[in-house]
């Protein structure tokens, strides 16, 4: 399977199953797109007809191009067949029962009242609560006990607002550090925060202990303050921006993400990216809002074309800044063509409910943070382990080949079958397909690959 597209002044051909990326001229682009459906004679006639006035387009040149394509095909770099289906599920089966990451819901409460919050202002449609040290400690022990030979264990402090329970965060980090050597593990912590309670103590502690911090900022002041307000309705932008700037500077501008959400109110989110850049931030993430389709902030079909255009312009801006020696990172355009995930990872699905779980303040286990509050998805608890094996089996069987719609999709080895929570909320099934999200994802991948290809070609000059 191949995917061919034109973007940023380049013709790009992706060979999906080998991961190969080719940048080709117009004629080669046309020939590759005809190659599987026509013979050389037919291709030559069509191409000569299409380019009658181009002296470089000759019968010999066309035949030479076809020869080159055939060589790439033999080398498994073009039209590589999909032979991965038997592997799907194999990695999960091989690692069945091994957990390597927990999202600790350290506080089901928040000091902001953002109406677009998928976690319903941090309460996840339930009661306000904070996690005790005892529950958190048990969660860490549960993770270690179930992590098999995995050395790297990931723990996210999530909410609600985790800094509303920062004492317990610190106690849990200290506890993890006290056992990791003896257990042969390496804990990597991430803290997600809205910034309201960031102070020197938080900065100093987090920059010592957190591998990554995710700082919520939606970009422009008016955009941010539309949703991210306190319980009196006051915007939080003025308060948090200086704190985030200090936080990031103290981390040497590394290992953080400014994480924004764009909604129906700002499909032109590139302006928000530019605001973040103007504020001195360079590690950026902007996510489409996740909410019910009838929510006023939900992205509409009309918004989609705007968002697609914004993604293209963002890629162009990133390339310009890269060439000017002022690069910045966009989370969804990070793609390592030479060293990305292996094929097992690519066909196995996202890992929710199997190797990744969310833990509520009470110690209940859910397949991921987005399922918390959906009682039927409760997997068990950190005290009893996974008891709802029926639900876990459903997640275990999610992979790139378990959704019929994905079989012919060129992006399947980049998304690994997509987000189970998005699929469930859009279709009522974790094995459904959230097609709006797919369209945005595919556009992001096209942009990301174009960007990497352009940088590589720049480097070759």
């Amino acid at each position, binding site marked *: 399977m191949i995917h061919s597209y034109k973007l940023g002044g380049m013709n790009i051909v992706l060979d999906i199953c080998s991961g190969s990326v080719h940048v080709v001229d117009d004629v080669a682009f046309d020939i590759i797109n005809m190659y599987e459906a026509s013979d050389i004679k037919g291709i030559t006639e069509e191409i000569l007809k299409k380019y009658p006035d181009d002296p470089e387009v000759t019968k010999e040149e066309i035949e030479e191009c076809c020869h080159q394509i055939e060589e790439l095909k033999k080398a498994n770099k073009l039209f590589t067949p999909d032979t991965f289906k038997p592997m799907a599920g194999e990695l999960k089966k091989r690692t069945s029962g091994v957990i390597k990451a927990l999202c600790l819901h350290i506080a089901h409460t928040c000091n902001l009242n953002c109406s677009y919050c998928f976690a319903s202002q941090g309460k996840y449609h339930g009661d306000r609560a904070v996690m005790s040290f005892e529950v958190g400690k048990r969660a860490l022990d549960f993770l270690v006990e179930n992590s098999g030979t995995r050395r790297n264990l990931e723990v996210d402090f999530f909410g609600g607002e985790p800094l509303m329970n920062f004492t317990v965060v610190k106690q849990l980090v200290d506890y993890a550090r006290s056992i990791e050597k003896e257990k042969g593990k390496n804990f990597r912590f991430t803290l997600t925060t809205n910034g309201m309670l960031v102070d020197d103590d938080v900065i100093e502690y987090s920059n010592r202990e957190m591998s990554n911090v995710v700082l919520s900022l939606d970009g422009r002041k008016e955009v941010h303050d539309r949703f991210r307000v306190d319980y009196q309705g006051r915007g939080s932008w003025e308060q948090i921006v200086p704190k985030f700037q200090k936080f990031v500077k103290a981390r040497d501008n590394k290992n953080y993400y400014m994480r924004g959400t764009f909604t129906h109110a700002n499909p032109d989110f590139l302006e928000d990216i530019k605001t973040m850049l103007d504020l001195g931030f360079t590690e950026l993430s902007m996510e489409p809002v996740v909410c019910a389709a009838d929510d006023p902030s939900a992205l509409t079909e009309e918004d989609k074309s705007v968002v697609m255009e914004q993604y293209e312009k963002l890629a162009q801006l990133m390339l310009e800044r890269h060439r000017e020696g002022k690069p910045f990172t966009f989370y969804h355009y990070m*793609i390592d*063509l030479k*060293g990305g995930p292996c094929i097992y990872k690519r066909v196995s699905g*996202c890992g929710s409910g199997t190797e990744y779980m969310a833990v509520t303040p009470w110690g209940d286990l859910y397949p991921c943070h987005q399922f918390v509050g959906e009682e039927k998805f409760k997997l068990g608890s950190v005290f009893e382990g996974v008891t709802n094996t029926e639900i876990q089996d459903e997640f275990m069987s999610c992979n790139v080949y378990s959704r019929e719609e994905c079989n012919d999709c060129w992006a399947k080895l980049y998304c690994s079958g997509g987000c189970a929570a998005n699929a469930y909320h859009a279709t009522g099934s974790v094995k459904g397909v959230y097609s709006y999200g797919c369209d945005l994802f595919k556009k992001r991948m096209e942009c990301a690959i174009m960007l990497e290809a352009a940088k590589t070609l720049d480097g070759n000059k």
Partner: protein
Amino acid sequence: MKIQTIETKNLCESAVNGGCGECQTSCQSACKTSCGIANQQCENKVEE
């Protein structure tokens, strides 16, 4: 006519030594609401 091939990891070859499972799960770091695995790093030193 010109075809320039960008150097990439060969997914077919990664089937040989892949699958150690040490890499991050999909939704960690900055995302939390939309899935993708392409932007993850491989942590299998054997494979490299």
